[in-house]
């Protein structure tokens, strides 16, 4: 049965079932696979071929390795400040894999696995966190937006992209990411309301990783869940186990289908944990306990998906080793490529500000060049 609070009116029976079965006010959370890798709620197990699941695991593992390497490159001074995605790979990869190629992804900054699925490479990542705008020059048609730093501001762009899609009658769906902290921003509210009013194909995907830098989730907002905030907009909301690849995939898949069918936006809260520091400039020991970190280590999304695959004989230690090797060499190769990239020129500073460079900018560019010439000459 469809409850009155969310506009689930156009949903198929099955979709409405998922969102209603996990009504945020009921205190329920969608979990398909438990920490041991066992399927505990087969009803909501997504219909995925084994090969897809293996592929998901591989991307997650790749992202984990890339993340770990990046953090250590940063420590060596070879990259600048960057936000680790460790522990959130299921939420990133599970949600991204549930989308189609025509769909748009509007990121925050902590979804490396999702970007990789969408078509970004580690070269992009290294360039970006290595301090170059070239890292956001994705190939035409990638439909992945650059990192958005001002918290939750990107949710508005997602609504706008979806608006344009709906205006043209295109089938594309937009997913946008934000954090538990991001749920406090006015832009979360305005974008959610707008998307609901115009019934836009948007998935608001909240990575609730327990902290906004040092602030615990329970001090961020008094609402028991982030998911229940959907009620304010008359849209469906659901809380899922964000470390459970299958739960994330299924919820995103339903939300995408729902959006594609013209039923408007939905809100997914993926409960996860940032296992690393906020960014490489952060020291989590100031605000959380080793015990807490330990407890979440056991819930790591990699562990449970690997266990699942191993139980199904789809994965083993050899394959793990081999994939680690391959991933490592691929990442290394791209890092070398990054380090060999030329520094930006004077022209690079100016030429992307406007489509046509105004005279005032040309003057400043010439002035800067002249100065450099004077200095060098």
């Amino acid at each position, binding site marked *: 049965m469809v409850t009155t609070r969310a506009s689930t009116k156009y949903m198929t029976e099955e979709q409405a079932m998922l969102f209603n079965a996990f009504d945020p006010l009921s205190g329920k959370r969608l979990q398909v696979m438990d920490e041991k890798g066992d399927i505990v709620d087969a009803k909501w197990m997504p219909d995925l071929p084994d090969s897809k699941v293996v592929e998901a695991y591989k991307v997650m593992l790749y992202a984990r390795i890339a993340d770990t390497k990046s953090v250590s490159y940063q420590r060596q001074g070879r990259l600048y400040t960057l936000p680790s995605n460790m522990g959130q790979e299921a939420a990133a990869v599970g949600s991204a894999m549930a989308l189609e190629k025509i769909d748009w992804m509007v990121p925050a900054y902590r979804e490396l696995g999702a970007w990789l699925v969408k078509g970004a490479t580690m070269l992009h990542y290294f360039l970006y966190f290595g301090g170059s705008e070239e890292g956001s020059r994705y190939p035409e048609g990638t439909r992945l*937006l650059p990192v*958005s730093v001002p918290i939750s501001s990107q949710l*508005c762009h997602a609504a706008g*992209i979806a608006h344009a899609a709906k205006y043209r009658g295109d089938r594309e769906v937009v997913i946008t990411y934000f954090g538990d902290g991001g749920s406090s921003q006015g832009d979360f509210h305005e974008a959610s309301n*707008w998307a609901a009013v115009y019934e836009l194909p948007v998935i608001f995907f909240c990575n609730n990783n327990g902290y906004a830098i040092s602030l615990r989730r329970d001090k961020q907002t008094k609402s028991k869940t982030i998911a229940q905030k959907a009620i304010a907009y008359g849209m469906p909301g659901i809380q899922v186990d964000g470390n459970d690849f299958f739960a994330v995939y299924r919820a995103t898949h339903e939300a995408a289908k729902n959006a594609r069918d013209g039923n408007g936006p939905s809100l997914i809260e993926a409960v996860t944990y940032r296992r690393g520091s906020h960014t490489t400039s952060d020291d989590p020991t100031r605000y959380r306990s080793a015990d807490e970190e330990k407890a979440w280590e056991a819930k790591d999304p990699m562990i449970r998906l690997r266990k699942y695959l191993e139980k199904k004989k789809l994965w083993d230690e050899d394959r793990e080793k081999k994939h680690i090797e391959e991933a490592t060499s691929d990442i290394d190769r791209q890092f070398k490529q990054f380090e060999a990239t030329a520094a930006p020129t004077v022209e690079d500073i100016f030429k992307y500000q*406007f489509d046509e460079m105004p*005279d005032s900018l040309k003057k400043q560019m010439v002035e800067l060049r002249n100065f450099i010439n004077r200095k060098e000459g």
Partner: protein
Amino acid sequence: MAVMNMVQAINSALDVKLADDPSVIVFGEDAGLEGGVFRVTEGLQQKYGEKRVFDTPLAESIIVGSGVGMAINGLRPVCEIQFDGFMYPAFNQIISHAARMRLRSRGTYSVPMVIRAPYGGGIRALEHHSESMEALYAHIPGLKVVIPATPYDAKGLLISAIEDNDPVIFFEPKKIYRAIKQEVPEGEYRIKIGKAAILQEGDQLTVVAYGAMIRTVQQALQKAKKDGLSVELIDLRTIYPMDADTIINSVKKTGRLLVAHEAPRSFGPAAEIIALVNEEAFLHLEAPPARVTGMDTVVPLPKGEDLYFPDADRVYDAIKRTIDF
């Protein structure tokens, strides 16, 4: 040609572009059904339908922010902010995204969006309905800022703004929305963004102004003419990027500069113009460049507003004093 006031001319520009380009959409608070609180978008929803011309929830950040998204996905959004005083909730979207998306993405994404807003003082309005804060936007890298002074210019500039591949803040001087009527072509024409207009030639003083202030200056110039003073009047039309050449060439000729605007003086547009002229025409200056401006205070409510805004007498006084220096 039809005779139009500025409201009609802007409406006509929107009409032309809506007809011409299916990627143009128009929206804002009350901009749809009732055609905007100043009726600038009147009749457009009826003509083009609710998908192309629509009302929005009362939320400026998402109005601009969704515009950024629409632009990224191929549209040319023209959004209306009900008054310039209500742009601030959208400031983050303007400065952090609209102005940066092209540069940030190395040109992969761009934001061909126009943000229109009734602007400036002189209509005896409530608080926040009378300010002139164009300098805030002109200082932000990545934005263009346009302020027309006549119906003809308004239409030609707005068409250019909609066709521009970058975000344009389009401020409409509400004081003269209906004050000036002019022959305006019904079809399409363009006025180049970034190009000032010399409205009157002269050789004793260059006056730079824009928007509603142009009329005020013109009144002062009538008096000056009677006194036999020869003044050159430049209508800036675009605040950023500024047409430095036109100003500098004029000052090279006249040797004197006066800038008039409603905006508060300190850190206002006049300062930039004076600095530019110092850099490029220093040796030609025969008198200190002068500013006739609003005060460094909040614009008073209507009973005090005549004391605040420069009127023709104040402009005339400054003209005299600059020429007599």
